């Protein structure tokens, strides 16, 4: 059963009608066929979907990015990648299940993959801490990236988190430092690094594995400095203003590409990645491989210089000519 979001209700309604025709109990026995009607309905659905999904608001995309059926990192590790060998722990405190990582094969390439991981149901979400990593997660990610650097494996990170975990333990073990160190160290690894936002790109928790030579984003993913709800609570004093905040923050793939903050948008199947995992997995593999090949044609120092220049250039300000 497809899971419909609120704004997808018109399509759900049409689909229900179509299903009713298809499943009519007397159709076969009476020899009646509703070919015509069904064809009209199918066209209607197609047209409605095309209309709806090509005009999504920022908030609707946020909802798609958080869709309960949306593919997560481990889904892509089964489809886009092969032979995933998970590696555990930060060698300091524990193994963070909200951050997964390990060796994997991407087509012809052997790579290191690191990704934040959400849970599909309540039980799994508790195990995965709803995809919000503790300091251990970021330190595990750093450990694996250092390993990749020593043995010359390209690093691919998959980002899908509402943010780093805001809890007492996280503060006590210094989540801010864990993220900050990653930001600094990721600027020093000579191996190619590609980051891909596959769902939610939640602020520092996303950036903590997001400093890369190439930053890709799935069509319906978002990447933001603060959650739309958080922004709404502060600026509008009302969490319900989240749709307005989502618009104002310019967080969709298209907005980010236009601002030069991401390098490439990976198109999703109509209606979202969750409707066709095979298709999105292939598109993702093709894009990742192409970027790995391009980056491999550069030397290590060249990659470092261009990665630094890329992040160095972000920002807008005015500077009146000094009279001095």
């Amino acid at each position, binding site marked *: 059963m497809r899971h419909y979001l609120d704004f997808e209700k018109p399509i759900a309604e049409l689909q229900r009608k179509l299903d009713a025709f298809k499943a009519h109990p007397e159709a076969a026995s009476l020899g009646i066929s509703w070919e015509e009607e069904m064809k009209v309905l199918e066209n209607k659905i197609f047209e409605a979907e095309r209309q709806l999904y090509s005009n999504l608001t920022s908030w609707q995309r946020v909802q798609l990015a958080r869709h309960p059926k949306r593919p997560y990192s481990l889904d892509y590790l089964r489809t886009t990648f092969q032979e995933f060998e998970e590696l555990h722990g930060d060698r300091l405190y524990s193994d963070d299940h909200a951050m997964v990582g390990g060796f994997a094969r991407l087509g012809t390439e052997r790579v290191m993959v690191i990704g934040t991981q959400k849970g599909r149901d309540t039980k799994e979400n508790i195990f995965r801490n709803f995809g919000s990593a503790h300091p251990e997660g970021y330190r595990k990610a750093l450990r694996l990236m250092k390993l990749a650097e020593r043995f010359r494996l390209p690093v691919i990170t998959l980002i899908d988190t509402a943010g780093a975990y805001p809890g007492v333990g996280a503060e006590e073990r210094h*989540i801010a430092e864990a*993220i900050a160190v990653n930001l600094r160290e990721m600027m020093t690894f000579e191996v190619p690094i590609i980051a891909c936002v596959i769902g939610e790109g939640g602020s520092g928790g996303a950036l903590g594995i997001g400093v890369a030579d190439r930053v890709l984003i799935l069509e319906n993913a978002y990447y933001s400095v603060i959650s739309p709800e958080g922004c709404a609570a502060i600026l509008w004093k009302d969490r319900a203003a989240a749709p307005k905040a989502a618009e104002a*923050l310019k967080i969709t793939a298209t907005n980010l590409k236009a601002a030069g903050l991401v390098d490439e948008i990976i198109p999703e199947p109509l209606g979202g990645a969750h409707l066709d995992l095979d298709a999105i997995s292939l598109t993702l593999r093709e894009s990742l491989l192409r970027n790995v090949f391009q980056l491999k044609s550069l030397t290590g120092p060249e990659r470092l210089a261009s990665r630094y220049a890329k992040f160095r250039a972000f920002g807008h300000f005015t500077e009146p000519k000094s009279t001095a």
Partner: protein
Amino acid sequence: MATRGIRRKQIDVEQVPPAVTPPTRDGASNSFPSRPKLTSKTKKRDIPEGLWIKCPRCSGLIYDKELDDNLKVCPNCTHHFKLGARERIHSMVETCSFEEIDPLMESVDILKFTGSSSYESKLLSYRKKMPMLKDAVVTGVGLIGTHRVALGVMDFSFLGGSMGSVVGEKLTRLIETATDRGLPLVIVSSSGGARMYEGMFSLMQMAKTCGALAYHARRNLPYISVLTDPTTAGVMASFASVGDLILAEPCAMIGFAGRRVVEATTQSELPPDFQTAEFLKQRGLIDAIVPRLEMKQRLISYLHYLMANRVAS
């Protein structure tokens, strides 16, 4: 938030000895129907505003010039009030030795952000209110003792010290200047985090500043990060947390997530000292707590050690 509890307590204390003997609390007497009247007399409301400042911790009244002379530290209880960037720089560097970098750089409203009020109008009102500041950080090179140091000081009074493109760019240029000229770096942070109004551009300043610090560290140059009240979120999760030395002012609020967010997420009571400088020190996250009045001398002392036998690379 922690100070609010203290303040309320202190006000209660103040209410206890009224000018007149209060009636016995047996409910029989109605001669003093409302207690607040008494307190309003004891509060000195007729004093011109701005001359006297009430300390939120000890409730003592401090003559504001005395407070300024004492670097905004309460002379009675050593409560550290917030200190402006320029006053702080003045307190740290040798007279006339500070050369400011990029003094004219200003923020622009790149997203055309409109919320309850627009970013553009916010910026205008802050610039008007604070003609000495163009944004939330002042950067430059100056002498601290005998050490020439690249110094960046944030100012919380400008939009909560939030980091947007200007803060990120000025700090990055400062760090690059330090790297190029072989200077030690001191950054004094005071910030609520990344500036929402600039969206993802603000988030990227975290990567930008940390990247620049990576190259500064590679040259074996020391970086001392000083955390003042408050340092949180995007600033704490970037340059403020990666100092070779990390110092904090007493009682400063320091953390990643806001206290209310943590409370809401964990649904639990938080320890009263949660996210204070003392909390961080106790858990081994910072090197030392340094009172403001000792900061300059301590920095000079640390720099002596860090620069004495340094091998340039």
